[in-house]
């Protein structure tokens, strides 16, 4: 039995220079599993989610590897078929709730547009579904909210609506791309709890992209640590926080703020750790070029 999402040896390159942005990434996410993708900016953590959903920037090209979603080889499919498959079984919770809702459309249609346009639901069914979803994400007075425009709602409300919209078509995979980075810490907690609740309720596979190990420890069961587009550690969350195996993971954890232990947290990353992991990446690159 294979996992719902399987990524195998995925390499992405920047068109023109040929520089690798993702370096033979492999990972699997099963139904009901929450996997964190952690790394600093430029580590390629968002790139993986974008590759799965088919929204890579034009300048980025998949060089090799396979992405299998529910047994379908995404990279081998015709673009239109792939789009339709992704639209019906996968969904994205984006980073910034302030820009992720279309400012000139009302909330209701933004939750249900996929149901009506892609999956062929009737308007009334879609409307009922929207109300049900808004209830699930704990929005009071959903009848009123579906007629609103995004600018009339707070950031936390908008993120709830985006979550509702992501779960609208009962997707089996959700990719959450730094969904709470733009929010205040008190709102972040509510949203993280909500995502966890919705994921458990719907039994969805969830890929959670974040730079914050604190957040990972709260919502994920497993995680992949990335550096320069390479997975340097792949672990269960409990094992990882007890004893990270890779030196870079240890350094990252030591740099993460922790107010209960100020002296041991916020440690600068030792240059030797960066040198070592960079060298590791370079070796992998040489092998990769050799193998082609």
């Amino acid at each position: 039995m294979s996992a719902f999402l399987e990524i195998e040896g995925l390499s992405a390159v920047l068109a023109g220079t040929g520089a690798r942005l993702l370096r033979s990434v492999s990972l699997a996410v099963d139904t009901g599993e929450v996997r964190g993708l952690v790394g600093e900016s430029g580590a390629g953590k968002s790139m993986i989610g974008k590759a799965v959903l088919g929204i890579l920037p034009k300048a980025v090209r998949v060089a090799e590897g396979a992405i299998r979603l529910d047994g379908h080889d995404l990279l081998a499919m015709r673009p239109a078929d792939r789009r339709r498959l992704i639209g019906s079984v996968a969904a994205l919770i984006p980073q910034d709730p302030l820009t992720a809702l279309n400012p000139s459309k009302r909330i209701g249609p933004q939750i249900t547009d996929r149901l009506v346009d892609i999956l062929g639901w009737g308007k009334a069914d879609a409307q009922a579904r929207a109300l049900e979803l808004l209830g699930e994400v704990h929005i009071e007075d959903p009848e009123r909210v579906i007629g609103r425009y995004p600018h009339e709602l707070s950031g936390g409300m908008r993120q709830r609506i985006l979550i509702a919209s992501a779960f609208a078509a009962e997707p089996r995979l959700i990719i959450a791309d730094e969904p709470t980075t733009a929010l205040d810490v008190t709102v972040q907690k509510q949203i993280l709890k909500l995502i966890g609740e919705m994921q458990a309720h719907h039994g969805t596979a969830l890929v959670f992209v974040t730079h914050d190990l604190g957040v990972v420890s709260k919502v994920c069961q497993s995680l992949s640590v990335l550096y320069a587009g390479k997975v340097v550690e792949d672990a269960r969350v409990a094992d990882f926080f007890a004893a990270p195996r890779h030196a870079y993971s240890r350094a990252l954890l030591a740099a993460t703020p922790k107010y209960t232990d100020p002296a041991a947290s916020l440690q600068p990353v030792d240059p030797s750790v960066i040198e070592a992991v960079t060298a590791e990446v370079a070796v992998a690159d040489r092998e990769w070029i050799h193998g082609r």
Partner: protein
Amino acid sequence: MAGNGSATNAPGHLPLYQVRGLKVALPDLAAKPLFGPPPRIDILTGLDFDIEQGTALGIVGGSGSGKSTLGRALLRLIEPTGGTIRFAGTDITHLDETGLRPLRKRFHMIFQDPMSSLNPRRRVGAIIADPLHLHGFDRVRERVGEALDHVGLGRAFAARYPHELSGGQRQRVGIARAIALEPEFILADEIVSGLDVSSQAQVLNLLERLVAELGLTLAFISHDLSVIRRLCSEVMVLHRGQIVEHAPVGEVFAEPRAAYTRQLLDAIPLPDPDQPGW
């Protein structure tokens, strides 16, 4: 530089900053009526506090709490609508630019967005040298070099343009510009919020070292209590334009008195799967 006059006048015990009943209201242009001036929104509604010499004060609050407005008022980038701000005994609340100029070398600021706060058309060296020239410092080249050494960038960086630097490096340039003046007080406004964890740790450690070495008084604005815990000796929690708690850092974290502070602390996700309350 013999700028630290007030530090030696210990007997009078004069805090570096004395803020009383500080109010700031900004015009709400979105609600401007057809005729007449726009209504004003109260951002800060009467703050009282002192900043003692040599403290590192952490100012924390959510978005819309007024923390950045407070910072800009302390440096008189905006003029308060009420109350008083005294800096080293001088009332600066309504001082005009000419009156403020001699004080400007005694307090400085590091900005949140290092890209926007560095003039893109000038080299790093010129950016750091500029305030020095302005306040008639001698040995400017040397001082620029020293400041760059201090922040761990090295003198070769003087010839670079801001866009050639990484985010962490730009923020160090901002710090170098501030310390080159050898000010008594530095305000740091969310200076690590745009940085990766590893650069964040580096910048914070650098700042921690500099505060100790140079005997600076620091106000550190942040939305992140964890960062303040590491760096500051006092915490002031702002909520909707009011101080809900102001105490030594140990007390606030051991026994938060205000409900809002507790809420903030509880919401921080520690890198620990077994954190209670989550």
